[in-house]
């Protein structure tokens, strides 16, 4: 009956039912409610930061999750570079090639595996329900999870970059591009995690449901071979694995050379951005696909009965 008034506007309200005297006398909205409405985005950001801090606190108390999320990818990096030994890949020492691509795989662990666990645990504990019934919007909740994952991912990226320096590797050539790839990667894998958690019943079950994505991405991403060195029947599908564009952009951004389908030719800063465009396009497409999947599969409430 009472029509919704415009954004942030303080409107007269009629025929309320609860907490209203039932005589249709207008009740003023408290300034508090109105202000919150006006700066909804700012509120979402504040809520996200708070929830991200909560998730990091909880992650810090969960040793199993801490191992999978924090140490496993670094262990992989160490294993691969140790296996490669003195080999040379695309004109670079194997260790440098692997480590420059490794930050592109971090969203898989810090964001995807981490958040499938978190979303599932919070849903089964009914925390998502409580948050939704409370002050936080859906955007704030997803944003908080994404932010927590991104924070872990960025700390790990910092560690990998320090490691690169320690083995006389390069200093990153294009930090903005590196960050864009990191943020887009975190966004794609947050949404994929939301979708995947919809198919996951318990946190134990999550160890199984993350595997398909984990396998495809680990095998498809060009961590130790440039796609240009692979036969086209492998390289073309690998191009569309969600982590591939992140790995390629990351490597290009760190080395300042074309590793996006290319074989390492030097690029100017503008050239690096230009070369990254198709990969950014693939990421944008993944963002859309992951968003649709999340919209369809994500659940706020546990399945009952």
């Amino acid at each position: 009956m009472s029509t919704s008034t415009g954004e942030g506007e303080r409107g007269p309200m009629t025929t309320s039912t609860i907490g209203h005297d039932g005589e249709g006398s207008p009740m003023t909205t408290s300034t508090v409610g109105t202000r919150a409405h006006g700066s909804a985005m700012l509120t979402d950001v504040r809520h996200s930061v708070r929830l991200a801090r909560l998730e990091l606190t909880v992650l810090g108390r969960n040793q199993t999750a801490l191992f999978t999320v924090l140490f496993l990818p670094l262990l992989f990096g160490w294993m691969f570079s140790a296996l490669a030994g003195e080999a040379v890949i695309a004109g670079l020492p194997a260790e440098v090639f692997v480590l420059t691509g490794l930050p592109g795989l971090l969203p898989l662990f810090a964001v995807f595996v981490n958040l499938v666990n978190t979303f599932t645990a919070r849903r089964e504990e009914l925390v998502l329900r409580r948050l939704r019934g409370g002050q936080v919007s859906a955007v704030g909740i997803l944003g908080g999870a994404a932010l927590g994952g991104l924070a872990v991912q960025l700390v790990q990226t910092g560690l990998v970059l320090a490691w690169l320096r320690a083995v006389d590797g390069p200093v990153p050539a294009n930090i903005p591009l590196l960050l864009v790839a990191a943020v887009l990667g975190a966004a794609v894998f947050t949404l994929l995690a939301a979708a995947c958690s919809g198919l996951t019943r318990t946190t134990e079950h999550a160890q199984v449901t993350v595997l398909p994505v984990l396998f495809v991405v680990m095998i498809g991403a060009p961590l130790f071979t440039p796609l240009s060195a692979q036969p086209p029947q492998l390289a073309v599908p690998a191009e569309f694995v969600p982590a591939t564009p992140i790995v390629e952009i990351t490597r290009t951004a760190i080395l300042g050379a074309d590793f996006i389908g290319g074989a390492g030719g030097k690029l100017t800063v503008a050239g690096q951005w230009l070369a990254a465009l198709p990969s950014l396009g693939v990421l944008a497409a993944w963002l859309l696909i992951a968003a649709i999947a999340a919209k369809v599969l994500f659940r706020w409430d546990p399945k009952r009965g």
Partner: protein
Amino acid sequence: MDGLRQAYGDFEAVRGISFTVRPGELFALLGTNGAGKTTTMDVLEGLRPARQGDVRVLGLDPHRQRRRLRPRVGVMLQEGGFVGDLTVAETVRVWGGLSADVGRPPDGDVLETVGLAGKARTRVRQLSGGQKRRLDLALAVLSRPELLFLDEPTTGMDPEARRDTWDVIKGLRAAGTTVLLTTHYLEEAERLADHLAIMHEGTVHVRGTVDEVVAEAGDRIVFRLPRLPRGGPPSLLDTTAEIARSGDGAAVTYTLTGTSPAGRAHAALRPLLAWADEHRLTLHGLEIRKGTLEDVFLRVVGDAR
């Protein structure tokens, strides 16, 4: 709320209910398990949109105008909704922060209020069921909401905790908070509610003030007679007696409904005693009992069967 209907698939959980809660009062929604109470609460809390009907909370649409409504509302869930790895104090701090972000900072020491101050450093996972309910209440009342939704607030509590919780609720109500409470403890509704409604199988069967609803149950006059005189006991206020014969006489029961509840038992007694004198009878074990909420509740549930 007017004509709310809500269905899950083919099952219609709520089939057209209407009620109004006045500001500052405590309204209790009673019902058996599966009566549709929680579904109704979900709609009022904005967790799901109303399938049909008009729902207003503080004059706002609880689903579409969530952002404006939520800062003014406190919600106590039926169960759970906590991050097990956080301590009690951390949980209160996070939820207080989320409220502060929408302009409702926490007010006073809420753990003291609900009697959990001694558990501040305990992990939520380690709390007993009753303690979790107290924490839930603490989060619901954290920032002095104008309207409080309590979904079975004392389920699983021991009698002492239940009394404490009632005191907290009474205190809030005295401070002007409007409260909507669901419960299946009749005593709880009888003690706390200004108005109540009894729901069964998706519809409201009875509603009114506690006195009004109880009045409907009718007063009972019960006694035993060693022998029944010719013509049997008289009808009192147009009510005929129910007689159960047994070996050593007959049990007689009148259920007085209609007329004004205040004087009806009194009015019925005079002709009854006159009749007894006339037949030189003693009414053994004469008992006059006011109707109870339980009588009404059982009748509602029984009628529907």
